[in-house]
């Protein structure tokens, strides 16, 4: 072993030692915080890293690991997480865990039958600790000690009185002025003082009042007891629910099995939306691919003709829509299709005197979207077809011509079948891409126009992926994260089927087996 590799070895072990020391420290910190999931992730990750760096057998992993980390963290883990969320009821109203909901409910209070109110003086000592003297309406006085209220006799000499005869200081505590009270409202609101059974809390800037605790969690029954009405609310379907069906808000997260999936397939409202959106998604993908391929192939056929001059210039001009960032094109087209202001309607108005309600009428909005998408993607189809056309052997055409085939026959009998072989996988790939082309839909119509009476926020031009987005992130009807995740998984299954078909064409799988 020469000196240089000794140095690198030394650096390597030094690095591992430092890393392990740092992780060990973090593990202890996490142990005290009780954050076991993160602890497990960190621990397993570090062990793996040690193995990779120190073991000879793991040498290839040193090359793979950096990329794998990102792949796992940002693709594989999110896929698993999506499956997990799709099995829960996670949505607005059920975002908290059960423990959080119980903690929240146990912090709720109600007014007792005979509520008592207290005026108060607030005091603070040099250490910043608050103390209160409360005076009840019947003149009884109390002093706060920690979280207890104890009766106190204010004539005791330790209470120093000011000119108006009220207590200004005692035991090192001095009275807060009104502005200081305002500044301390947060701390005062947080106080929960006990007076026997009752809780005494701030009710207004000038008063404290008595409260009783509203709920108590009963672990053995997995229920919450309403201490005011004596009704027991049992944990059921993500809510604490009374025997006669009244729910306490907020609900909590629970696993609901395949209910989200079943909702998509069987709940009449959701199923109607799903069917409509799915139908449009298929039509959008199919028509986009069909027309852009037709247009692209047409231009490719023209540009491939050796008798047409200036083909290179034409090609460069025709390719421009493809070179534009799609989000810019989509926003520009959205402006051009604007019903009142857009140039398309101005031209149509001048020529035919009509005003098409492009983005308000469902059918016209869909037409506009497909038109725009054809503009965006025909250059890709043109390039692909051009490459395929150029690879077709000329001899076949000579033979066909000798046999007397017309140019129409030559195109359909020779060119198309040969073209199809190389282009079909790309068309399927393009179909799958268009199927999930959120950007175009979102930037042109954002799924609008809205559909009246839809059970979920699904507009007339929403495709499955934009519907998912709205379910998850659009606030109007709450965030239905569980349902959105289920739809994501359904989309994934559809895409997987399309890809499986595509593999038959590309034989990518054979590449895997061949190169082993």
């Amino acid at each position, binding site marked *: 072993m020469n000196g240089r590799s000794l140095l690198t070895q030394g650096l390597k072990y030094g690095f591992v030692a430092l890393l392990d020391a740092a992780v060990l420290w973090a593990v202890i910190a996490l142990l005290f915080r009780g954050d076991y999931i993160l602890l497990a992730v960190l621990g397993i990750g570090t062990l793996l890293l040690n193995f990779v760096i120190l073991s000879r057998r793991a040498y290839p992993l040193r090359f793979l690991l950096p990329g794998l980390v990102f792949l796992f963290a940002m693709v594989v883990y999110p896929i698993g997480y999506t499956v997990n969320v799709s099995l829960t009821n996670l949505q607005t109203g059920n975002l908290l865990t059960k423990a959080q909901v119980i903690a929240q409910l146990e912090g709720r209070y109600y007014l007792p039958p005979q509520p008592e109110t207290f005026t108060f003086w607030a005091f603070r000592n040099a250490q910043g600790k608050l103390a209160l003297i409360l005076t009840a309406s019947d003149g009884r006085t109390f002093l706060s000690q920690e979280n207890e209220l104890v009766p106190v006799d204010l004539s005791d000499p330790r209470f120093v009185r000011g000119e108006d005869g009220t207590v200004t200081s005692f035991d090192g505590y001095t009275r807060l002025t009104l502005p200081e009270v305002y500044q301390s409202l947060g701390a005062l609101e947080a106080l929960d003082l006990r007076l026997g059974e009752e809780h005494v809390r701030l009710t207004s800037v000038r008063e404290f009042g008595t409260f009783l605790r509203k709920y108590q969690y009963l672990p053995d029954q997995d229920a919450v007891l309403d201490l005011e009405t004596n009704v027991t609310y049992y944990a059921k379907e993500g809510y604490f629910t009374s025997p006669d069906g009244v729910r306490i808000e907020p609900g909590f997260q629970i696993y609901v099995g395949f209910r989200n999936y079943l909702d998509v397939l069987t709940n009449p409202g959701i199923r109607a939306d799903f069917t409509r959106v799915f139908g449009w998604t298929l039509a959008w993908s199919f028509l986009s691919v069909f027309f852009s391929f037709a247009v692209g192939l047409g231009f490719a056929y023209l540009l491939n003709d050796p008798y047409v001059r200036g083909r290179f210039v034409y090609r460069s001009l025709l390719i421009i829509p493809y070179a534009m960032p799609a989000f810019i094109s989509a926003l520009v087209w959205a402006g051009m299709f604007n019903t009142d202001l857009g140039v398309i309607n101005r031209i149509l108005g001048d020529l035919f005197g009509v005003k098409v309600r492009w983005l308000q009428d469902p059918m016209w909005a869909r037409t506009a979207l497909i038109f725009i998408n054809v503009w965006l993607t025909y250059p890709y189809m043109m390039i692909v077809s051009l490459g395929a056309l150029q690879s077709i052997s000329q001899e076949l055409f000579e033979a066909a011509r000798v046999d007397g085939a017309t140019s129409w026959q030559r195109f359909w009998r020779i060119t198309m079948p040969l073209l199809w072989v190389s282009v079909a996988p790309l068309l399927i790939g393009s179909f799958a891409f268009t199927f999930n082309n959120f950007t175009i839909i*979102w930037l042109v119509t954002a799924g609008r126009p809205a559909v009246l009476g839809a059970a979920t926020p699904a507009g007339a031009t929403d495709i499955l992926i934009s519907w998912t987005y709205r379910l998850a992130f659009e606030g109007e009807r709450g965030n239905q994260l569980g349902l959105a995740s289920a739809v994501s998984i359904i989309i994934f299954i559809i895409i997987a089927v399309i890809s499986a078909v595509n593999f038959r064409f590309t034989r990518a799988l054979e590449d895997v087996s061949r190169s082993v």
Partner: protein
Amino acid sequence: MYSRPSRIGLIVRHALIWIGVIYALFPVLWILSASFNPTNNLLEQKLIPANPTLEHYRRLFTDPTIPFPKWVLNTVIVSGTTAVITVFLCALGAYAFSRFRFRGRRAGLLALLLVQMFPQMLAMVAIYLLLIKIKEFIPWLGYNTHPGLIMVYLGGAMGFNTWFMKGYFDTIPRSVEESALVDGATPFQAFLRIVLPLARPILAVVLIIQFITTYSEYVLASILLKGTEMYTLAVGLRFFIQQAYDRRWGVFSAAAILGALLILAIFLPLQKLIISGLTGGAVKE
């Protein structure tokens, strides 16, 4: 495939191509005109502006209420970083898959192929929740940060690009590194000094395509970034023009022209290289 067309046939062909060119260029010319048109209203625009002005361009860089330079900078930083790291990490992974024989290699390749089928944005809910969680522990890497967004993009870029580069590495003969390995170089040195320089074309393709893809990405950026100062160009421009076609069309057009110009300047000179990458060699026979 073609026979010599008649004179009329030739004219028809040129006419058809010109219809196509007008179709292709009309939107571009229209916003080019709008960007020089003094009015900001979509309705009052004419194709040839009466009094052309650079006012809209000037406003993009001087009006503090339009953080256009900031958006471009954000986008270039995010896309550039993503592209560079993607190239490096994917080259490493592709090299291992191409050169080493190890247990799990076959399963790994298959898994890679399956994972890259899954469009990352399908997991947007999970990614959103994950980044919010990360923010609690590592604030600079979580929700509403550029490093966080880059990390998400990197994850999405690994599958396809590793697979794609592996195909190219397979075509580089092993014999080129073997002499170096015999001379005592580690596989990593052979990779860095010999294979990478030979693979420059594929590195360039992945770099450029990844840059352009990330530059145009909208969904994840719109979910993970909040606040106009953080936006990328795609999110910012949409936010800027939404519901404001009657008031901001001129300034928007200027921004669209500049935003597109950056990509056009990369794309058009390198179109052959990029297209070879995008069509994945499926048309070569």
